[in-house]
């Protein structure tokens, strides 16, 4: 029997992981950024599965709408595609693959060997986030806003054309 939510979940997760693999594997940086957008969209879909509608919308607006587009702009400005691609070293690829595979095996073993409990985020998660941001976690919220301001000013100062 085919269970529709599970089928869609597997499709989304598979698409997201394939897009993530493309985002690190493909040689062309522009394709990397496009795959990153697909991967971020898959993560947003998974957020909807986890009852985090607000975060899914924020993921699409901030990550895809701002961060990924900024990365695309920098790729256009520095046009790395016009250059000759350097040859890949097989040894580096093999070492990285072994590192990533070992890390995944370790994490999967740790995940499967413990009894995790899924967080209960029932009800209106947007309201809960709003209450938390202005209630118990108001201090990190304010610090993050100062960090963002500092980052904006820092980026302006760093990339100013002298």
């Amino acid at each position, binding site marked *: 029997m085919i269970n529709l939510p599970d089928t869609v979940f597997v499709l989304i997760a598979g698409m997201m992981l394939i897009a993530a693999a493309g985002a*690190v594997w493909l040689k062309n940086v522009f394709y990397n950024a496009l795959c990153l957008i697909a*991967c971020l969209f898959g993560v947003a879909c998974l957020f909807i599965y*986890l009852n985090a509608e607000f975060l899914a919308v924020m993921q699409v607006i901030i990550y895809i709408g701002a961060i990924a587009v900024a990365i695309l702009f920098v790729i256009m400005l*520095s046009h790395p595609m016009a250059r000759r691609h*350097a040859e890949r070293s097989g040894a580096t*690829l093999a070492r*990285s693959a072994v590192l*990533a595979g070992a890390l995944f095996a370790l994490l999967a073993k740790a995940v499967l060997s413990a009894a995790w409990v*899924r967080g209960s985020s029932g009800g209106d998660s947007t309201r809960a986030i709003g209450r938390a941001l202005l209630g118990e976690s108001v201090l990190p919220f304010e610090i993050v806003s100062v960090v963002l301001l500092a980052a904006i000013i820092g980026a302006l100062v760093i990339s100013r054309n002298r």
Partner: protein
Amino acid sequence: MISQSIYSYLIVSSALFAIGVFGLAARRNLVAILISLELILNSASLNFVAFGFQTFAVFIIALAAAEVCIGLSLILLLHRHIDSIRIDQARELKG
């Protein structure tokens, strides 16, 4: 139910993290390294949401925006200085 079990989310985010680490170790292009960092941050935020801490994911998104903002301006500056965004050619500070 695969889509209701927390283990499937944890495995997916572990795979995302491993892919990000692979990109971090294998690529030499600074923009590609930044993209791999984004994958790692997303796997962390997926984990947080799966455990029910949605407020943390908001902070992760905000800090990722700040990090990308600074990182991209540094990449542009580097590109202006040495006309390359490959990490093995940025070696003026090396020994």
